[in-house]
């Protein structure tokens, strides 16, 4: 598989290999021991011993046979003896070969055997000589006896018989060597010996010779039984009896030992067989486990297994899917090929420390795919150890957490960033403010926040739609970001409100303020540049409130509130402005908060009141009345609508308040029905945009009229341009419905907003009301005079009445009259007055005088 795999295999399985070797060696040992009796050499030895005995027996029998034969041939017995010598000479070789043990006992038995053979050989030689001598004598004796007998007369039977007896008894002696035969022959010899001197001369020599041969027979035959006994193979004369006995015992002992070893070998074999069966089932069990493990291995988690030398050994399919590496590409290589380079060596060093200490590590890590892309992975590495606790493998499980990371990122984005502009949101801003404060506490440097509100954004949103408004916000956000440094924060709080946070300003408050102002001016300048939104150019401005901070001298919430206050101040100051927070501003802010609280109770406490102002024509005759809302605050006194209506609109209180205004106005119309003058005039009532766009506004109006019994024809509703712009179709529809029952409409504050001819022609208006700002500038600002003239001209061509409000001087009235405006409202004709006062004025018919007089007094 891999180079050096063999050596690694031996290293890893060293103990098993040694155990296997020992098992094999013990089996071999038993095998050799069980074989210790070499059957071949044993057979040879046994055969040699048997043959030795056979020859021994043969020798004894042959000797006996030779003894009883007259003629004989010793070749055979000599050969037998030679054979026995050869056989006995071979026996020491068995001792050398180990068939016979090399013990003194065996050596002794062998030497005994050799002595026995030597003894037998000597006995055989003695036998051959004796037997030959005896037989020669026996053959020769009759011839000599015949010579003697030939010398003796026939009558000498006594002496003849003696020689006959000698011959007979010598023959008997060769057949029967007992004492009796021996004694008889001996007596024969003695008697003849005594006879010899008496024998004839010629016979004497032969008789002596005969006796000599007879004695030879006697002597040789006398020793014969003993020699034959020595040559026989019976009893103690049996050659090699001791050795044979010893060897038989020894062989049997060897056999028993070998049998024992065979039994041991069988037991070992049986044991191994049992183990093999056990192992077979265990292996089957393990195979099952391995199959399960293999199935589990192919999970959706990526798995990588590598050895302590950091060679990857296995990976699963998920690994290939995750990393792009196929098993062939990574097996044998180091896991380092997955490194992204995003982590330093210290990271890996700590990681390995943990693995070595705990056997386990898990954490987030950046890996590199085969295609080079880097992705986050949750990596769990576990060390696998063998029975000795030595690490054999590492298993790394890799989980792709790209999606999780992305989700986290997204959640973070959602939680801390504004979806539209991708700017930090309020929450993140608060975080960063805290951090900046902490940083400022260390450095002593100032920080600043700029609270930015786009001017007239609401109008743009209302007129061009939210998508255009969004485009403006996105562009404003972009410009804000381009105005700040890297470490600064631009956040969107919501709507058209942005906050810019700058850090690291000077430690000197004044210097810091200067820097903040410069930054604010820069932003204001940037946001004032024209915007190109889709197809048209838009001009916008912003109001900026600035608040400095240093360390934790103020809470984050208060800081924001201060900046908001400053911004509000800037806005109040006429927009497109920049204001620093100051304590007075704070007081106003707090007052406003109190006012808001009080407003909640104003309606129920009946603190509202309607004031009335007269409208006149060129002939100074009253032509109408406008109802104006006033708040009679219990402690602050009279509060003007400009102060509390925006608050009411913000809080939603405008709806009940507006309803109250309508009901009170209608009730007044009804009250004035019988009045000689007022009963002729129309009453104009202001309706806020929010009120008008209630879905049931028409129904409520009708119900109010019905409830109060007021004549709809005497009611004139004054709408602002913002009412119309909110939803022109709805506005037009509602206006038509109300016009059908006789209600009339006037466009209030005309010229200040986004007045355009297009909607002016669609609306069923009865009157345009020129805003007091234009009237105020008549004779001061030429352009406004032109606007006034244009409005009057336009209204004339559309057949709509025109009325000017805020007419305060006669010059203004003259100019307006000349321009063609024949209706007026203002101090010149009468201040807004409470009901009793107004009724009183009407009763006396002295509006104009009073006002003109008072006007005159002013000049």
């Amino acid at each position: 598989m891999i180079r050096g795999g063999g050596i690694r295999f031996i290293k890893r399985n060293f103990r098993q290999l040694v155990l296997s070797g020992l098992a094999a060696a013990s089996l071999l040992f038993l095998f050799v021991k069980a074989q210790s009796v070499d059957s071949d050499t044993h057979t040879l030895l046994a055969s040699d011993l048997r043959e030795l005995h056979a020859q021994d027996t043969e020798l004894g029998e042959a000797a006996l046979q030779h003894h009883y034969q007259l003629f004989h041939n010793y070749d055979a017995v000599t050969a037998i003896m030679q054979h026995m010598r050869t056989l006995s000479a071979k026996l020491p070789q068995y001792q050398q070969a180990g068939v016979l043990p090399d013990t003194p006992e065996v050596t002794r038995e062998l030497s005994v055997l050799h002595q026995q053979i030597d003894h037998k050989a000597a006995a055989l030689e003695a036998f051959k000589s004796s037997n030959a001598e005896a037989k020669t004598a026996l053959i020769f004796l009759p011839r000599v006896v015949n010579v003697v007998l030939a010398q003796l007369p026939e009558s000498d039977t006594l002496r003849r018989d003696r020689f006959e007896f000698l011959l007979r008894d010598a023959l008997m002696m060769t057949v029967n060597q007992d004492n009796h035969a021996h004694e008889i022959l001996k007596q024969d010899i003695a008697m003849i010996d005594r006879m010899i001197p008496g024998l004839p001369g010629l016979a004497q020599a032969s008789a002596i010779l005969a006796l000599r041969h007879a004695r030879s027979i006697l002597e040789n035959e006398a020793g014969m039984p003993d020699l034959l006994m020595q040559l026989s193979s019976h009893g103690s004369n049996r050659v090699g009896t001791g050795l044979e006995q010893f060897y038989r015992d020894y062989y049997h002992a060897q056999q028993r030992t070998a049998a024992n070893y065979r039994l041991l070998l069988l037991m070992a074999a049986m044991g191994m067989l049992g183990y093999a069966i056990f192992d077979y089932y265990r292996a089957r069990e393990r195979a099952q486990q391995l199959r399960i493990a293999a199935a589990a291995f192919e999970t959706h988690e990526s798995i990588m297994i590598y050895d302590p030398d950091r060679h990857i050994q296995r990976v699963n399919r998920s690994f290939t899917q995750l990393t792009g590496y196929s098993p062939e590409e990574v097996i044998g290589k180091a896991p380092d090929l997955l490194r992204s380079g995003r982590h330093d060596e210290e990271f890996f060093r700590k990681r390995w420390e943990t693995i070595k200490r705990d056997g386990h590590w898990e954490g987030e890590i950046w890996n590199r795919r085969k295609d080079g892309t880097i992705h986050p992975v949750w990596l769990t590495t576990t060390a696998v150890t063998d029975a000795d606790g030595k690490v054999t493998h590492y298993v790394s499980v890799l989980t792709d957490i790209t999606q999780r990371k992305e989700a986290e990122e997204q959640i973070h984005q959602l939680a801390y960033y504004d979806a539209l502009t991708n700017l930090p949101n309020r929450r993140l801003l608060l975080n960063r403010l805290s951090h900046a404060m902490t940083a400022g506490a260390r450095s002593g440097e100032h920080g600043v926040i700029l609270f930015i509100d786009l001017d007239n954004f609401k109008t743009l949103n209302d007129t061009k739609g939210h998508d255009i408004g969004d485009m403006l916000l996105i562009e404003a956000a972009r410009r804000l970001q381009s105005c700040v440094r890297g470490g600064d924060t631009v956040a969107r709080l919501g709507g058209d409100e942005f906050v810019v946070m700058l850090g690291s300003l000077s430690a000197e408050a004044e210097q810091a303020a200067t820097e903040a102002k410069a930054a604010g001016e820069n932003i204001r300048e940037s946001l004032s540049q024209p915007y190109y939104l889709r197809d048209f150019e838009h001009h916008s401005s912003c109001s900026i409130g600035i608040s400095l901070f240093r360390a934790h001298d103020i809470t984050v919430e208060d800081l924001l509130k201060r900046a908001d206050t400053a911004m509000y101040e800037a806005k109040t100051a006429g927009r497109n402005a920049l204001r620093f927070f100051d304590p007075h501003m704070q007081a106003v802010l707090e007052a406003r908060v109190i006012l808001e609280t009080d407003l909640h109770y104003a309606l129920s406490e009946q603190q509202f009141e309607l004031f009335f102002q007269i409208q006149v024509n060129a002939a100074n005759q009253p032509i109408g009345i406008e109802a104006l809302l006033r708040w009679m605050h219990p402690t602050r006194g009279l509060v003007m609508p400009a102060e509390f209506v925006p608050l009411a609109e913000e809080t939603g209180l405008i709806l009940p308040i507006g309803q109250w205004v309508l009901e009170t106005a209608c009730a007044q119309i009804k009250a004035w029905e019988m009045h000689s003058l007022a009963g002729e005039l129309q009453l104009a009532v202001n309706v806020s945009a929010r009120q008008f766009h209630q879905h049931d506004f028409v129904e409520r109006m009708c119900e109010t009229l019905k409830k109060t019994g007021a004549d709809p024809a005497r009611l004139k509703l004054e709408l602002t341009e913002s009412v119309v712009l909110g939803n022109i179709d709805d506005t037009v529809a509602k206006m038509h419905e109300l016009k059908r029952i006789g209600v009339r409409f006037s466009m209030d504050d005309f010229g200040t907003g986004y007045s355009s001819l297009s909607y002016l022609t669609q609306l069923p208006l009865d009157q345009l009301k020129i805003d007091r700002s234009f009237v105020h500038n008549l004779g001061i600002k030429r352009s406004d005079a032109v606007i006034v003239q244009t409005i009057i001209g336009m209204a004339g061509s559309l057949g709509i009445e025109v009325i000017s409000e805020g007419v305060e001087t006669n010059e203004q009235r003259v100019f307006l009259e000349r321009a063609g405006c024949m209706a007026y409202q203002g101090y010149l004709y009468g201040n807004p007055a409470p009901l009793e006062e107004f009724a009183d004025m009407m009763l006396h018919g002295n509006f104009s005088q009073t006002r003109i007089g008072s006007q005159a007094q002013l000049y």
Partner: protein
Amino acid sequence: MPVMIKQRRRLALTFLAMVLACGAAFYFFFVADPGRSQNSSEPIVEPGEQLPITPIPLDLKLDARKVALGRRLFLDPHFSRDNRISCAYCHSLATGGTDSLPHASGVDGRPGRVITQTVFNSGFSSMLFRDGRAATLEELIDFPLPHSAEMDLAWPEVIAVLEQDQAYRNAFKDIYQEGIKPHSVKDAFATFARSLTTPNSKFDRYLRGDKNALDRSELAGYQLFKSLGCISCHQGANAGGNMYEKLGLVENYYAHRGNVQEADFGRYNQTKRESDRYEFRVPPLRNVALSAPYFHDASAPTLDQAVATMARYQLGVDLNANETSKLVKFLNTLTGLYQEGAGE
């Protein structure tokens, strides 16, 4: 699935181990019975022929290559200190296998103590030399070789002489795995010596059933040989040579001859047993007519004389001329024919 393959391999090994274990058990319990494989014992040698003298076998069954090599060794004079004395120097095959001298003559002409004996038919003898000091021809060669009065060479010298000769080296290499070693030299020599037989003597032909092989006087000589008791000692294939007997059984030979020497003690010199004093191997009578002079001391120059001496000292009789003549005639029928290459 490498896991599965490994698993299967493991099962296969386990199975193999089981088979081996079963096989080992089977082998030991059913096959390896040490008592089973037995060589049938060699046939027991039958006792000797009823005939006192048996004919010399015609068929020798010897390895011809060894005989040829042995002949070269036998004839090679380099087997001696002076490069002059070969085996054949004393045991001339042309003169009955002896030198016909009373005493042998060795290297540098040094004299031997006893008479040279014939090499013919020595293979049938189990006793070599007159005192029987060698039982086999292989043993025999160790006596003349180092003897100062014979060849006077030690074995390393013999091997060195042979190693110098390319022909010897090849011949030994062909026949003997061990090459030129004392054992192989002895074997070659002994094999050749065993080929030196003299079959087909008149008497052998008679023994084999040719009743006309002997004439009347020769047959009478054989009868006399038996009736005198000579046959008791001179029996066997070699008509002697298979037992020891004293010279002078009835009459004292040395008393008459005088000048008793150590060489006369015979077998005593070998065994140092008093009973063996003056005992000599009974001389084989094959080719006896060709091996004069006779007796260990070469005291009888003719066969007639030797026969008379034997009758005188062993039986105590003086044979008449007729008897001696018959016996000598009979003894002459024991002369066989050596054919070089016979039995090869």
